[in-house]
């Protein structure tokens, strides 16, 4: 048996060697371009892959591209430092959280002429909600949250959040299954801010949501698209980016921004504090702000672009002047952007949302 053990020792040794070889291979595989690399962390399906290829060709910078699915799953990955990302593309409230925790580095607009020129002034103004002096974030995609309704299934045009509480639409209403979006609807209906931390306002919103619950057919995330196209519900709360697509599939659908005001969401590029390739990161973001590139991305993603120069290049007049894709923001009152509420605020909202869901 002793001899036996020896040969197993050899096998184990061989294994150990090949192991290290495998892990080394893994490390070496991320080769750099002529001019270094840049590591980008973006939403899934949130860029035209062709634009990355063009960037690599024009600059000689290798793009290492990674994707996330929610702001909440992106944050710990960036925070843990397991990978030193250069660029991320979080949403408004997550950006304010990252600013608060000192995770972002300031943007030098002198190195980014396209970002300075092409992004519309009104979008920078809107970003001030989460990035007060426009120091950290460059808007990439934006949109509103509104009501999509099927005009063959309702008696009168829907124009207000209030109508989501109308008993005649019982079992025909789709609400968003996320804390902030659900509370936003109730808070806006009450004329309150959607970033409120006032307990009486929050309790009122909670009670409204509980009152509405029997009328709601389902709390959904992205199923709202298919359900509305299929005519399974009359009214749904939806993101504007999805509205154009659903309308194409079913011309009976109408999208409105409710009179009581709503949420303007903005996903924006940020450069991380410890970005190892800061210069390349600036080049990448600026490239994405170039009019032709932004147009390619708009065509691919179909979410509204804050890039005014790109909008000018859109050939299809009906999209260029679409009220859904490019609403005139000055027409509406009470438009707000989500802000990070702090850990206590978040858990308060979650607590109340749990009460609604469990009721």
């Amino acid at each position, binding site marked *: 048996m002793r001899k036996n053990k020896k040969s197993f020792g050899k096998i*184990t040794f061989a294994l150990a060697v090949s192991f290290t070889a495998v892990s080394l291979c*893994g490390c070496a595989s*991320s080769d750099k371009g002529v001019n270094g690399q840049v590591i980008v962390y973006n*939403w899934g399906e949130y860029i035209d892959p062709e634009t990355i290829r063009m960037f690599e060709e024009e600059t000689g910078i290798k793009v290492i591209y990674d994707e996330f699915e929610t702001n909440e799953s992106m944050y710990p990955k960036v925070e843990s430092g397991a990978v030193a990302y250069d660029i991320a593309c979080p949403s408004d409230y997550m950006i304010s959280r990252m600013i608060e925790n000192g995770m972002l580095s300031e943007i030098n607009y002198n190195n980014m002429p396209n970002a300075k020129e092409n992004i519309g002034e009104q979008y920078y103004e809107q970003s001030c909600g989460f990035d007060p002096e426009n120091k950290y974030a460059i808007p990439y995609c934006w949109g509103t949250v509104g009501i999509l309704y099927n005009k063959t299934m309702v008696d009168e045009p829907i124009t207000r959040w209030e109508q989501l509480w109308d008993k005649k639409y019982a079992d025909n209403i789709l609400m968003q299954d996320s804390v902030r979006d659900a509370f936003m609807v109730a808070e806006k209906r009450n004329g309150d801010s959607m970033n409120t931390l006032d307990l009486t306002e929050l309790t009122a919103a909670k009670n409204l949501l509980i009152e509405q619950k029997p009328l709601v057919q389902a709390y959904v995330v992205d199923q709202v698209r298919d359900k509305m196209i*299929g005519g399974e519900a009359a009214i749904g709360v939806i993101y504007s980016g999805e509205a154009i697509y659903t309308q194409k599939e079913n011309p009976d659908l109408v999208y409105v921004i409710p009179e009581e005001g709503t949420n303007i969401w903005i996903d924006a590029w940020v450069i991380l504090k410890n970005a190892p390739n800061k210069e390349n990161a600036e080049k990448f973001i600026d490239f994405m702000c170039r009019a032709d590139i932004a147009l390619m991305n708009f065509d691919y993603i179909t979410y509204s672009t804050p890039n005014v120069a790109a909008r000018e290049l859109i050939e299809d007049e009906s999209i260029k002047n679409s009220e859904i894709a490019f609403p005139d923001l000055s027409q509406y009152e009470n438009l707000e952007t989500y802000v990070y509420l702090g850990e206590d605020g978040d858990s308060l909202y979650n607590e109340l949302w749990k009460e609604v869901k469990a009721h």
Partner: protein
Amino acid sequence: MKNAAKKIYIALIVLFLYAPIGTLMVLSFNASKTRAKWGGFSLQWYIALFQNEEILRALFNTLVIALVSSLFATVIGTIACIAMTGMKRQAKSILMGITNIPMLNADIVTGVSLMLLYISLGIRFGMGTILLSHITFNIPYVILSVMPRMKQLNPSTFEAALDLGSSPLNAFFKVVFPDLLPGILSGFLMAFTMSLDDFIITHFTKGVGVDTLSTKIYTEIKKGIKPEMYALSSLIFVIVLTLLILINLSPDKKEKELRYGGKNEKK
């Protein structure tokens, strides 16, 4: 009457098991992007699938990771089983217990703890970390399927081979290994499917720009899963189904071939 009830019962089970897959396969031929509308029969998603480099790369990664990790896990697990037979009873049961824990453990705990381990050791995340993690969680499954086979083994055959002048290594490969082979093979297949299936652990231990199919599909959530994925899933399902049918058509022959093949290899 009783027979009819039996048949209906089976039919119901099959229906519930395969209705979702059936729906997915039907939708993969839908010309419209939404499931709510039938836009006519079309192969466009299959064409788009083979033109989508990212999905193909993710598929390639998934297969490579599954194959390599299950190979490593099979070798390590088998060696562990052999070592365990030489152990004292108590040590053996302790070791068995230790290998069982990762299987019972929730995937998310394994995933997070592996991630923390890699961070604290300063290992760069990438293909290597996914492979290491998959090998880690695959080993118990291999042990689980090889160990029963090991217990059935008659130790005298190995000793007889030694007595007849064979070297231990030779005796192992000619006498012990062929008997273990079915267990090793099923362990390998088990590890392979576990690795193919895994999402959570991969999600936590993957590096930048490395995606497997499951993590790739998950990132598509915000914009909605593309029908190309339906096409790919249908293809995978059909391939697995045909493989299973082929294997099940000639079970006896296969096993015999494997046994004799194992013995002849070392000549």
